[in-house]
């Protein structure tokens, strides 16, 4: 009836198994129907947002689905301890943890995705500085969604994540800082760098 479900479930297991170590005990108060209703109303409207971030972070639709499902199950478990500030960054923070477990799982597999640049090195590299040409040369032409997604996918972490949170998930700097657990200043410099890198790729694509 559902071809492919067993495969997906299998993958979800793999994600959960790695993630299980840091999972908190399941709260005993989940039977409270009011809690379920509140969680539903608070969290489900952001399903598309969470799924969008998962797609960009994991690049694979089936992995993204598993990660989002895992994210919502965890969010429900921890909903009792949720005190705000905003639901969206909170869900994103949980999703990031799930994705990190998935990265770890992939790292142990020989056929992992194209490797991301190591975080620290990329972040400490000096800012892009090659654009001292005439301003007129810097004109950005419109591109279709497929092309732009491909360009964004090529951005290294953590720049891609910051960029997606701002430009596609529409988070404020403060919310991004909450979601990724970094100071606002870091968010700002990552975003500046993400945009500079994307611009270079965008202009190269136009050649």
């Amino acid at each position, binding site marked *: *009836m*559902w*071809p492919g*479900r*067993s495969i997906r*479930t299998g993958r979800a*297991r793999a994600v*959960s198994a790695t*993630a*299980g170590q840091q*999972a908190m*005990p*399941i709260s*005993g108060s*989940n*039977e409270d129907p009011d809690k*379920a*209703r509140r*969680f*539903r109303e608070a969290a*489900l409207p952001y*399903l*598309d*947002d*969470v*799924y*969008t971030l998962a*797609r960009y972070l994991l690049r694979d639709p089936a992995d*993204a*689905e598993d990660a*989002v*499902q*895992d994210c919502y*199950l*965890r969010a*429900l478990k921890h909903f009792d301890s949720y005190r705000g500030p905003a639901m969206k960054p909170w869900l994103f923070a949980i999703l990031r943890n799930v994705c990190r477990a998935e990265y770890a799982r992939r790292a142990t597999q020989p056929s992992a995705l194209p490797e991301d640049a190591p975080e620290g090195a990329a972040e400490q590299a000096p800012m892009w500085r090659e*654009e001292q040409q005439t*301003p007129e040369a*810097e*004109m*950005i*032409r*419109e*591109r*279709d*969604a497929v092309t*732009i997604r491909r360009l*964004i996918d090529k951005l290294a972490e953590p720049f891609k994540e910051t960029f997606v949170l*701002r*430009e*596609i998930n529409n988070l*404020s*700097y403060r919310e991004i800082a909450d979601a990724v657990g970094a100071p606002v200043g870091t968010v*700002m*410099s990552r975003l*500046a760098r993400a*945009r500079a890198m*994307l*611009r270079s790729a*965008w202009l190269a694509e136009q050649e």
Partner: protein
Amino acid sequence: MNCDEAEILIHALLDGELDASHAREVEAHIAQCPHCAAELKTFRKMHEAIAKADLRYTAPPALRRRIEAALPKPQVGTSRRAVLRGFAMGSAMSALAATGLVAIVLRNDDEQLIEQQIVSSHLRSLQPGHLIDVVSSDQHTVKPWFNGRLDVSPPVIDLTSQGFALVGGRLDYLDARGIGAVVYKRRAHVINLFVEQTGNAAHVSATTNMVQGFNIRAWSERGMRFWAVSDIGADELAEFGEKFETALQANKEG
């Protein structure tokens, strides 16, 4: 302000994150620095191009259903709730086991799953431009339209004279299979009638359930399974179902 500072702050300006006094400072710098002015212009252009292209993804309906099914909900039957409660309360149970259980809960409850899909399809159909593929109040236009698009085309019966106006037909999906939907209107309310072929010719009398605030009346007749879904009351939906069945009996052409 120098260019190094501006390099970061033009983004905050672009994103509307600066307070008025800092925004003025950045603007003052840009006014006398062609390089930073060009930077801002480029990034603004890129920002606009990104906003214009729709880069978001939509969660697949199956994912939404799996998550919905994993949440405890008060309106479902006792046995299923008991299972979910067990899942929710089992303090020793890991996320690993929970994931497996979700699949089990779904698999054991096909009819409920299908009814949730019916409601999802109904909701989707209510979005602008999704309701009807072939617009016609003439059953002799709607019926042939389905031929060639589905293995078995659904019976299309005009009930306009009986208070349920035929407005058209649509190809929809149920459980990843193509399925015909015949669309009726009762006053301003839409009724989607989903029709699926079954191997079983037995008559199964109608049952009505409420799912997410919508009434679903389901019955089987002449080797077909019917689901009528709408936000009209259960009594009106029953009236629709009875009139449809009567007309189907009378109209052997079906």
